[in-house]
C-alpha cells in the first residue's frame, strides 16, 4: 500500500508577518519558511503507518517554485521514501492543487492520501476535501486519531462540539490536525542522506492542469489595530475599571 502526503512550504509559524506597504500581499522575501505544521503531522502519521507494516512506500508531494524542494527534503529527512515536485507554479489555489494532486494520485495509486487540515498562510481548509471529492473517495477531516483496519479507516475527528468517530472505506483522504501526533525530528545523518533520495519533477502543463487563478486578490491589508491598553496595579482596580470604565461587567 502506498501513502501520498502533500506538503506545503509556508512562512514559519514563529515569524511575525508583515503586510507589504503597497497592499499587494504579505512580505515573503527573505522571510524564514518551513513546512506547514499540520503537514508535519501528516508526514508523521504516514511514516507511522508505514512503520506498522501496513504501507510499503510513502511519497511526499509539493507544489510550488524551486524552493518547495526544501520542504520535500524535510519530509525525506523524516523518512519519506521519495518526493514529487510539481514545479513552476506560485500561489496556486486549493482547487488547482486538488486537481494536480488528483493527477498524481492517478499516477501513483496510493490507498491513503494525507494532508494537513489547513495551511497556516491562506487558512482555506479546502484542499483535502476537494481532492477527495474529485477522486470520489471518502474523507476524514480534522483527524486527531487514525486507526486502520483491513479495508477501512476509523478516524476520530475534532469538531466544534467535541469529537466524532467515522469509519471510512478505502481509499481515503484524511486531513490532519496538530493533535494527531508529535512529528519526529529528523536526525542529521537522515537530513544529509535525504539529499540522495529521488524527487521526480513535473509541471502543471505536463499534467494537463490549468492553474490560472479564479480568485483575484484585490488587496491585502493589516487588520485594524487595537488601541493600546493599560496595566492595572491590582485586582481591585481591574474589577473597578471593568465595571465603571469599560462597563463590561
Amino acid at each position: 500500500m502506498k501513502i501520498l502526503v502533500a506538503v506545503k512550504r509556508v512562512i514559519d509559524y514563529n515569524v511575525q508577518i508583515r503586510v507589504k506597504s503597497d497592499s499587494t500581499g504579505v512580505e515573503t522575501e527573505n522571510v524564514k519558511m518551513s513546512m506547514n505544521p499540520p503537514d508535519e503531522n501528516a508526514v508523521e502519521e504516514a511514516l507511522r503507518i508505514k512503520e506498522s507494516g501496513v504501507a510499503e512506500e510513502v511519497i511526499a508531494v509539493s507544489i510550488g517554485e524551486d524552493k518547495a524542494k526544501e520542504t520535500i527534503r524535510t519530509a525525506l529527512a523524516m523518512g519519506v521514501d521519495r518526493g514529487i515536485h510539481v514545479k513552476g507554479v506560485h500561489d496556486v489555489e486549493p482547487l488547482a492543487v486538488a486537481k494536480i494532486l488528483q493527477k498524481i494520485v492517478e499516477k501513483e495509486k496510493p490507498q491513503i492520501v494525507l494532508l494537513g487540515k489547513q495551511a497556516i498562510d491562506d487558512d482555506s481548509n479546502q484542499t483535502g476535501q476537494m481532492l477527495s471529492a474529485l477522486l470520489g473517495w471518502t474523507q476524514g477531516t480534522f483527524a486527531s486519531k487514525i486507526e486502520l483496519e483491513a479495508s477501512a479507516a476509523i478516524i476520530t475527528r475534532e469538531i466544534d462540539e467535541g469529537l466524532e468517530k467515522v469509519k471510512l472505506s478505502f481509499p481515503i483522504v484524511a486531513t490532519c490536525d496538530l493533535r494527531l501526533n508529535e512529528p519526529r525530528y529528523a536526525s542529521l545523518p537522515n537530513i544529509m542522506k535525504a539529499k540522495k533520495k529521488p524527487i521526480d519533477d513535473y509541471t502543471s502543463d505536463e499534467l494537463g492542469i490549468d492553474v490560472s487563478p479564479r480568485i483575484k486578490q484585490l488587496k491585502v491589508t493589516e487588520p485594524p489595530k487595537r488601541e493600546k491598553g493599560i496595566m492595572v496595579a491590582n485586582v481591585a482596580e481591574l474589577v473597578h475599571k471593568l465595571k465603571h470604565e469599560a462597563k463590561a461587567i
Partner: protein
Amino acid sequence: MIREVQKFFGILIFMKSKAKVVVVGGGVVGVSTLYHLAKKGWSDVVLVERKELTSGSTWHAAGLLPLFNMSYSVGQLHKYAVDFYKTLEEETGQNVGFSVVSNIRLATTQDRMDEYRQYAGVAKTIGVEVKFLTPVQIKDIWPLCNIDGLIGAIQHPADGYIQPADLTQALAKGARDKGAEIYRNTNVIGIKKNNDETWTVETDKGEIACEHVVSCSGNFARQTGKMVGLDVPVIPVEHQYIVTEPHPEIQKRKEQGLPEMGVLRDSDSSWYMREEAGGLILGPYEKDAPACYIDGPSKDSEFELFQEDLDRLESHIESAIQRVPIFGEVGVKKTYNGAICYTPDGSPIVGPAWGLKNFWINEGHSFGITAAGGAGWQLGEWIVDGEPTIDMMGVDPRRFGDYATKSFLIKKNEEAYANVFTIHYPDEEREAGRPLRQAPCYDRLKEHGAVFGQKFGWERANWFAPKGVERIDDWSFRRSKWFEHVGNECKNVQANVGLLDMTAFAKCRISGPGAESFLDNLVANKLPKKNGRVNLCHALNKNGGVLSEYTVAKESNDSYYIVSAGAFQRLDHDWIKQWMPKDRSVTFENLTNSIGVLVLAGPKARDLMSKVSSADFSNEKFPWLSSQKIDVGLAPSIAMRMNFVGELGWEFHHPIEYQNHIFDTLMEAGKEFNLKPFGIRAMDSLRIEKTYKLVGTEMSIEYSPFESGLDRFVHLNKGNFIGRDALVKWQQKGFQNKLVTLEVKDVKDADALGNNPIYKGDKVVGRATGGNYGFRVQKSLAIGMVHPEYATVGSILSMDILGTLHDVEVIKASPYDPDNNLIRA
C-alpha cells in the same frame, strides 16, 4: 485607555526630554552599558530601543561565555564579565541562568597546542585560570566525546553559558533600580549635534537632549553611525546553530546526578557544542557564511531569523558526529540562523567615535554575550571618568580607517567569521580584500621577493624571499621557514645597508600661531627648539598613561611635522584634533597619503647617500635627530636622521609621486654597497635589540611613561601638559612596573612573542611585552614589564614560552650598541 505610555509593573513612565546619556539599542550590550553608567552614579541615563529588548541578535545567541581570547584587552573584558554575571542574581534578584559548566577546547595538532600554550601565558598575566588536559582527562569530563586524534585540550573551569534574555533583563532591572530608564518601542530617527556640542536624539516619540550618545544598535550599527556621518566598520554575518531533541544518554547522566559536560570546542574542526535541555547544540563557524543586513535590517525586523542552510554546514556536522557520535542519533529540533555582528578583525569596537565629541561606540560584537559585561564596564569608566583603566587598544573603534568601505567590510567580516577558530598565529596575515592600499614601490618590492602583510589596510613587506625560495609565508608560534631569511636581512643591515618601506606611517602637519603651545600641551617631552630638530614625544591620556608616540620635527616656529605608527593613524590624529583649540590658531593637515617614507639603515648608508644626493651627510652637518630638505637622485625629499633599527641611517619622507624614482635611484647606487630591502619582521628583531618600544606593547595607557623607560622624554617641570597632574600623583603613589630587557636562555626553536608570564619562583612578577631573536647580538631577547623590585640588572627570573620555563636575565637596555655609537656615527 488610549495613552501612549510605557508599562513597568503598573507604574506609568513618560519619556524624558533631557538626560545625561542616551544609549541607543536595547540588546545585552546596550543594557550593560546603561547599567554600568548607572552603577558609576549617573542615574540620569536612558536607553532607547526600537522594539523589545534583545529583539535584534541577543535573543538568539547561544549564550556561550568564552574566556578564551588571544588579546590581552579583550581577555580582560571577558574575564570581568564572567565574574560580574555571577553577582547579578544577588544584586537584582533575577536569575541569569549561568551554567558554570566549564569550557574545553580540543587540539589535534601541535600548532594548536602552541596556540593554547601561548594563550595560557596571556591567561596567567590577566588572572584567568586555565588547565591543560590529556585526552584521557577529556574523556573523563566528556565521556560522550570520541578522543581519537586528540592530542590534548585546555579547560576553563570558570566559564560556561548563560541565558542571554535573562541576563539582559537582569541588567535592565539593575539599571532601573539605580534610576536609569528604558524606553521600548521607541525608534531613533535622527541624532543631531547641537551648537554647544551636546546632542539631540530624535525619536518617533519625541526628542531627548543629552550630553553623551552611546551607539549599541547591533545590526543597525552603520545606520546609527550614518545619522552622525560616521562610516562604522560593522556588518553582520549569518551564524547557525542546531538544537537537537533530548538524547537518552544525556538524560541518563542527569538522572544519575552527573554534572553537565561543559562547552566543547573542536577548534580544528571549527565548531562548538554544549548540552541543551537533555540534547545538544552544535554551532559551526563555516567558510562561506554570507554577510547579512548589508544595508541594515528592515524597519519592521524583530526577533528575525534567516532560512537555515544545513548544506553549507555539512562538513562540520560530519565532524561533530564523528567527535560526538550521539549527536548523529537524535533529531534536529530547530536550526537557528541569525545575524552576528562582525568587524574586519573579529574584535568589537568599543570607545569614542572619531571626530565627534561625546559620541561613543559599543558595536561589532561577535561574542556579545560575553563582551557586554566588560565593554559596558570600561565604556562606563571612559564616559564618566574620562578614561578607561585597561588598555582598550584591541577594541578601539579607531583601529580601522577610511579603507573599511562597505564592500571591504563584506569581504573582511565574512573572513573574520570564517576565521573564528583558525589558529591565530602571531604572524598570521589574512587574505581577503588584499592588496588594497599600496605604496608606489609595491611592485618593486614584490619583484625583490617581498612576502606581504597588511597594517591599517596598507600592504607592507614582512620579509623577502631570496631567489629560489617560494614567496609563501610560514606561520608559527615558533621559528619557521622565514626565520633564516629574516636573519639574513638583519645581518645585511648590520654589515652593509638595508632599505625599508614605511610609507604606511601616519603623518601630519600642525601649523599656525598656536601650534607650538598646543603641541607643548599635548606631549610630555619638550618640543625641538631649532628648526630641523626632531624629538621623540609622547601624548599621555588624562590618567598619565601613554597613548601615542610621535616623532615631532620642527619645520618653523609655527609648523611641525608629526609622524607616528601607521596602525594608529585614525587614533592619533583623532586625539590631536580633539584637543586642538577651536579658535583656528592651529591647523591640522593630514599628510599620510601624500608622503611616502623609505628608510635607509646600515653602516654604508652614508656612503650610499653621498652617491645619490648633493647634500652633506657628515655627522657635523647632519647630526642625529635632525632633518633637512635634500635631493635623492632628481627628487626632493625631507631626510630625517633617525631610524628604528639602531644603525646609521636616514628616513626619507618624500612627496609620494617620487617614490619609485627614489627607490630605483637608491637600489641602483646601492648595488655596490650590497643594499637589500628588508621587511617588518627584520625591523622587529632589530628594534628589540635596541629596546625600542611600541605603543600597544611596551607603552600603553596602563603604564606611565616612567614605567616604560621613557624618563628622558618626560619633563614634568616644563609646564602643564595633558596627563601631567595625574602622572605626578601616580608617581607619588608609586609605580608597580618597570620595563626591563631580558636575555632568554636555552631557547631552541621558540622565542618570546609577548604576553609571556614572568616568574620569580612560583610568583608571577611580570609579563613580556615583546620578544625576538637578536641576530646582531646572537641572543634570544625579550622586553617586559616586571615589579620594580625585580628589575635590577643581573636579576635572574624565569619566563614561560609555550609551556616551557626559561631562565631569563635582566640585562641593560639596548644590548646592541648600548652607547648608541652607531646611530650617532
